[in-house]
């Protein structure tokens, strides 16, 4: 299965982003973690817009890309307002939810850049996602050893009009 890519932090809506992005590549040049890839949207000439393939290299919310963007395709926002997507945890697969397994994994919780806010421990020991606080950076998806948590990109949400992303 091809993992849907994420847009870098600070995108208002996909339409607004595409209208503003001029493929200058400065977001990718300033990225500390080299997680932004510039690939064409359509065939060869679709414009090399920035994408984050979280299964290969997630965003660590350093927020340098959104500060460097000259066109406000990526708005200069805080990590909490990155609005890249929302993590969805599959309780049937996550070992922390399998009481009989006796395993306390917590990898997603420990690695989440917004630990305690976006990912928290329900009842003190079961990881859970607080959707309204999740930046959608993809770190949890990247680190989960069994693929029990996936990020749904904001651009794929039914009403991608900036409401979710604020």
């Amino acid at each position: 299965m091809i993992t849907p890519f994420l847009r870098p932090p600070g995108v208002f809506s996909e339409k607004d982003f595409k209208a503003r992005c001029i493929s200058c590549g400065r977001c990718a040049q300033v990225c500390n973690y080299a997680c932004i890839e510039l690939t064409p949207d359509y065939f060869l000439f679709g414009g090399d817009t920035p994408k984050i393939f979280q299964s290969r290299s997630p965003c660590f919310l350093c927020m340098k890309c959104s500060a460097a963007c000259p066109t406000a395709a990526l708005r200069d926002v805080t990590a909490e307002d990155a609005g890249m997507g929302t993590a969805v945890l599959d309780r049937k697969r996550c070992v922390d939810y399998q009481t009989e397994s006796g395993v306390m994994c917590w990898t997603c919780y420990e690695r989440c850049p917004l630990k305690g806010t976006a990912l928290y421990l329900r009842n003190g020991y079961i990881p859970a996602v607080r959707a309204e606080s999740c930046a959608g950076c993809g770190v949890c998806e990247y680190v989960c050893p069994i693929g029990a948590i996936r990020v749904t990109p904001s651009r794929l949400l039914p009403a991608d009009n900036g409401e979710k992303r604020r």
Partner: protein
Amino acid sequence: MKTPTLRFRRRLVQCGVAGAFILIPFLNREGIHLLSGNFLSFDFAGLPLADPLAAAQVFAGAFSLTQALLIGAIPALTAALLLGPVFCAWVCPYGLLSELVHRNFLHQGYAFSKLKRTDARPLAVKTAVVCAGIGAILAGAPVPLLNQLSMPGWYSRAAQHLALYGEILPGAALMLLVVPALEARSGRRFWCLYLCPQSVLLALAGMLSRKRLRVRFRRRSCTCRADDRACLGACSLGLNPRTDGTEPDLLCSNCGDCIDICRTRGRALFFAGHVQRRQGSDESCGATPLQKE
């Protein structure tokens, strides 16, 4: 000491810029961010620079413009206002590539296109391309389409890809190989003359100023025979530099090649800003009508 020719100075600038836009992405990769970006948007130690057409497309698509784009477009437009579209001849790496291809692989020399510097057709074609692109964005095209026709943009994006991912950008490779090959085959620099959308706003900005720098022709100093086409053959765009200066100069990018060739032939061609006309004098850029050749 012999004064360096304009073409030598121009080559230095062109090669310096072309080399810099290859080097900069590699410096960025090593964490040096004093200069960053490409020909569509560039950051010069905190000073934003932007392609005016990219800014226009963002405005057409999003109906708003950031400070960085607004301020960034000013230097290019101001330079065009004062000096004409010198970006094309002195800075653009595709201009360098196109010229080198013509000089080295087109042994029969430039096709003499009989275009006058004042010919409006090529600029009209380019303007139509720009209007179509902007119109498409206004009609809902999802991306700034005209950036895909930016040859300097492709050049610098190719260097970025090479530095960031160690890969050749396929679209850039295609454009930077096919377009010069087609130009060499046609014997004309048709992309620069008829298609390049980036040069349109610069040419239009240049037209706004009557005092901007341009090539002037002083007919009484011309020592060439009527059939000597040295200066005409020197122009890589195939323009006739012996043009009456009363009409707006639409195509010349002030490369200075015709001036170089004229240095040993009476210095009838020279760079100047606004030249005052004197009654009964032909000092002002070919005030006497050009004789039929």
